[in-house]
């Protein structure tokens, strides 16, 4: 990962969402992007030029654009039409972004488009986030990595975030996935946790 004086950046064509640039690099803001926050509070998984990524919950494509700066190809899955329009703009200016409008909990819908990936990144506001991740592990090659951005408030608003964090870890471990890192994303994102796993 490229850092300039401790600031996380990526190298690519700027002006995607009005981000700042620093010496020709695009600044990757941890307050806007959970993945950037993970690289600052934890270790994460290094993005390499040959990495293939399946990105669930692509939203407007801001984080997607940074990931695309680092890796070979990003399959960006998004469900809602409004953010998809922004994501399409990102895809038109980046050769390695594949926008897919589909429901991440129905991976069979986009199976004819997606190849085997090295990294599965998930950031969806759904109650069954662990189940969605497990269903999409079909695209993850053995030894590949999963980064699950757990939005605890989307799982169950009545439960304590820490309890949901534990439950989700249990589900993943009992499904035979090795959790290598798990951390809260404070102070950048409240009640959000990152879980890094290896298949």
């Amino acid at each position, binding site marked *: 990962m490229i850092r300039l004086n401790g600031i996380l950046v990526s190298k690519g064509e700027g002006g995607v969402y009005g981000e700042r640039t620093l010496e020709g690099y695009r600044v990757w803001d941890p307050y806007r992007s959970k993945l950037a926050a993970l690289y600052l509070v934890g270790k994460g998984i290094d993005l390499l030029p040959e990495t293939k990524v399946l990105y669930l919950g692509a939203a407007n494509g801001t984080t997607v654009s940074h990931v695309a700066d680092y890796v070979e*190809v990003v399959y960006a899955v998004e469900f809602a*039409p409004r953010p*998809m*329009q922004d*994501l*399409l703009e990102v*895809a*038109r200016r980046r*050769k*390695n*972004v*594949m*926008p*897919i*409008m*589909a429901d991440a909990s129905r*991976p*069979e819908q986009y*199976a*004819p*488009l*997606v*190849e*085997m*990936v090295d990294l599965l990144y998930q950031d969806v506001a759904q109650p069954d986030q662990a189940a969605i991740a497990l*269903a999409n592990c*079909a*695209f993850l090659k053995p030894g590949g990595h999963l980064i699950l951005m757990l939005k605890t408030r989307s799982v169950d*608003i*009545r439960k304590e975030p820490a309890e949901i964090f534990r439950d989700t870890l249990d589900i993943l471990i009992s499904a035979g996935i090795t959790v290598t890192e798990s951390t809260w994303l404070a102070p950048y994102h409240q009640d959000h946790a990152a879980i890094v796993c290896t298949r």
Partner: protein
Amino acid sequence: MQPCWFGDVDDGTCIPFTGDAAACARRIRDLRTGRDAIVPVDWQQAVACGICHDRAEYLALLQNVCIAGSEQAVKEQYAAKDVELLQMVRTLDEMDTVVNLLSERVADWYQIRHPSFSRKYRRTPAHVLVKSVGGRGGAIGKVAAGITSLADTRTALAKEVSGRACEVMPNTSALIGGLVAARLLSQAGGLKELSRMPASLIQVLGARTALFAHIRTNAPSPKHGIIFQHRRVHNAPRETRGKVARVLAGKLAIAARLDYYRGSAVPAFLEDAQARIDRSGASEEGDQS
């Protein structure tokens, strides 16, 4: 056999799909693969298939298909009948808020310029005062005139919303009126979502704070949300209101499903439902629930 975006792959042999990106995208949308049958695509097969020569070409072609497919999907979503109604009713409700806020503000402002102590002036409602201020000069007159014209637009929009709701959700609108039906739709997030809701949720749609207060603590459960706006609920005596709301919500749940899956008014159901709701508001002994 494994369907891929570039064709069908079967044990090393491959039948390429000929057609442009848009046709390709349509084919994928129509494919129905099983949940257990998820096999990721192997790009080498596209080369074997004669679709492309190298990785760069593969990605370029795939991107065309992905963009075409997503554009189709967005257009399809926006073409649904309820999507525009959703925006219309949300605009309407926001206009209400704005008009009320500004009217109160102008009324306060006017009081400072023309302090009056008579009862008549203090009793004048804000919207009436705004109308009378509208004709006068200065910034306050312009603001007041703006509010009046916004209020007129609002009235016109309300008519349109209610007309559109009768088209999109004929059964629900017949039971509860176009405006309230549209508000239910807006809270649910779409006709499909509304049609999949249980009656008990429709009953308390729009009473989120009260509902969560009930779930969290032992506060009493809300009896009605948006459906309170219907005269049958708010005109009912306090002790039967909960019952009327429950019966009405039950019929609304059925009506929403009829609207989504059938799309036209069902007179037999409506007659029956109206009678049932009327009965729920009547005396206790005549009730069968």
